[in-house]
């Protein structure tokens, strides 16, 4: 186990706003914490609650969903679906003992490269303060992975 805890964040970013904002952060050479791993989905509405649970189950210390601002969804209202699911799932996660700061939904438009930095840095700091979600080896760890692929 590493001595210093580095949070592992899985980020689901919508293709049209937040993914582009992260691209803009790149082209603007804005620096931020390297802890997030972005998974691209077409719309934040595609984020199945199971994705979030799967991420936590595989050892994510935090899950971030990034979508277009209300009213700006490329698909009109997918982000509203994301919001509703987020609200429900948040309570469920809390009951499972997963702190609120570990699960976050943010509206980040394609022009808000700096918000990507701010949100990821903030989330990493908050999750770092909470410590790892699991302190023991997780499902999908090295042994399982080797077994799965023979």
């Amino acid at each position, binding site marked *: 186990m590493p001595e210093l805890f*580095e949070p*592992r964040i*899985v980020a689901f970013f919508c293709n*049209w*706003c937040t*993914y*582009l904002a*992260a*691209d*803009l*952060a*790149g*082209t603007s*050479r*804005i*620096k*931020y914490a*390297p*802890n997030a*791993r*972005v*998974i*691209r*989905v*077409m*719309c934040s*509405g*595609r*984020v*199945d*609650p*199971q*994705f979030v649970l*799967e*991420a936590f189950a*595989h*050892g*994510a210390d935090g899950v971030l969903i990034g979508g277009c601002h209300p*009213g*700006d969804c*490329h*698909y*009109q*209202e*997918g982000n509203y*679906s994301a919001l509703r*699911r987020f609200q429900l799932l948040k309570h469920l996660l809390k009951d499972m003992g997963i702190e609120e700061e570990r699960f976050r939904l943010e509206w980040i*438009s*394609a*022009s*808000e*490269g700096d918000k990507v*930095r701010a949100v990821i840095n903030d989330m990493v700091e908050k999750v770092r303060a909470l410590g790892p979600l699991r302190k023991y080896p*997780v499902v*999908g*760890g*090295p042994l399982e*992975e080797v077994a799965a*692929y*023979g």
Partner: protein
Amino acid sequence: MSPHDESASPVRVGVYVCHCGTNIAGTIDVHDVIAFSAALPNVALAREYKYMCSDPGQELIRKDIQEYNLDRIVVAACSPCLHERTFRHATEQGGLNPYYFQMVNVREHDSWVHTDKRAATQKAKDLIRAAVRRVKLHRPLERRRVAIKSEVLVVGGGIAGIHAALTLANAGKHVYLVEREPTIGGHMAQFDKTFPTLDCAACILTPKMTAVKSHPNITLWTLSEVAQVQGYVGNYTVTVRRKPRYVLEDLCIGCLECIEACVYKQAKVPDEFNLGLSKRKPVYISFPQAVPQVVVIDPETCIEFKSGKCKKTCVEVCGERNAIDFQQKEEIKTIEVGTIILATGFEVFDARRIPYYGYGVYPNVYTALEAERLTNASGPTGGEILLRDGRKPKSVGIIHCVGSRDEHTNRYCSRVCCMYSLKLAHLIKERTDAEVYNFYIDMRTAGKAFEEFYNRVAGGGMYLIRGKVADVCPAPNGDGRLMLQVEDTLLGMVRKIPVDLVVLATGLEPQKDAQEVRRLFNIGCSTEGFFLERHPKLAPVNTFTDGIFLAGCCQGPKDIPDTVAQAGAAAAESLALVDAGFVELEPNTAHVLEEVCSGCRTCIPVCPFQAISFVHEKNKAEVNEVLCKGCGTCVAACPSGSMQQNLFEDQEVFEEIGGVLAYA
């Protein structure tokens, strides 16, 4: 979770990591990433290359697929928004289905945003591991082909919209040109001379305006706005709201006798075209060369609209032509177009936002656009540069960068102000022989023949003072002049310079309703609020919404040559789509696995496009692929996992999640 067809032999993945010169390799240890990738399950080959997107880079993929019998490709390089298509194409040319490919973004999302090399390298490994695990599950997919409508909508009738419309119309396409104002021409129609050639704006613009009106392939709708846009590339249905002009365009011959006959003997309404520097009547024409050559009645000020008791001398003088119709109502038009060009232009920075320059307080502080009208031969003063009291100015100060390059207003450079300031300085000098001062931060004259213009004009006896004006106030001696206080950064001293006239070189801003327009057309805005292009260099007129293009200042400040060039490019891009006769749509639509679907209908109300219907006979949901836009919201809503989205199947995303989190 759906069953996947796995061939008997294990999948062979080829992983390619791009150096992007030093853009990626400077931060990420590419050799280490390659060694890691090569050891991943299913990876048959891992290679690095300096520039994967180059032809030799793509050739590597094509050859390796053949030589090493690869059946999946992963490229770790820049953003998929930039080169996903490039590499899918290379994969296809190598003989594989183009969707047997996954791109990993290790530049924008990694090497460019992190400084810790170890952490950045680890991130690249995690992302590649996820892609390898995901790409194994990819299925062969086909792009859908749909017919494209050949009509084009151009929004905005400034020089950008005019040029784009004419280019397309000349190529035989039918164009709808929609303009909000009563006339086309835009800001260019308000200018006097254009830099750097000093040819008159009207002389080069008005023939094009007339050509628009007379072109058989152009339908021109002025006083009109787009109200709704539906559909997708190739098949947009657009609703246009045509506001009443109260004058029938087909009947009015532009004799302007009604203006003469109006019961208002004196013009009393501030004239918008002259920025309030002159007055107009309630019935008016924006400017003599307006297109269409049709008057317009302003219901806000017309007595007939206010009281209903006007003598209607305008109707009387119009006589048998009967062109005036006070009953005219708003019209809603619905059109079908294949592509759309947005050329909605810019707004001039409101100089009142910088109070210490005194615009709106001191009468002889003008904006540059007002100064344009003063220098214009058909302007309110007939081209004479006059103070508000009618005197000729003896000294003039032009303040650059008003609302540009300033943390408190706009950080960006508006690009045209240095040049138009030099032009105005030259015209003012020529016509009044006044002392002309230019106060600049940096003189920016990048452009063909611009620097030569600067040298020529600067040599013409004007003062160029490098410094930002701090204050404009009345001269203390009470002679009615204005005192400019400026730190001359070349002399290193504060100077106070009295002038008669101040011209503020106001910058260019996005239109006030740019955000609403952006939503209407489902495109993005950059940080400053201008419409966002797909790529700043390689797709400067495309947007992220296929079939919608940008031209002119709605995309960012630019001068007339650049605007016209961009409008031509937008027209060409539009033509390229339309002329193909069909468009290919991404295959990332949703589909139902019928054997799993329980017929619960959860998916149906979440679809914003009414693409899902319920088939009673089968008790299953069904997706109409033509209507489906591929957001995947229904997939996330489906409780049984029977709704799946191509390229984003549950199992594919699960593998990606597992992949980014698996310990190395």
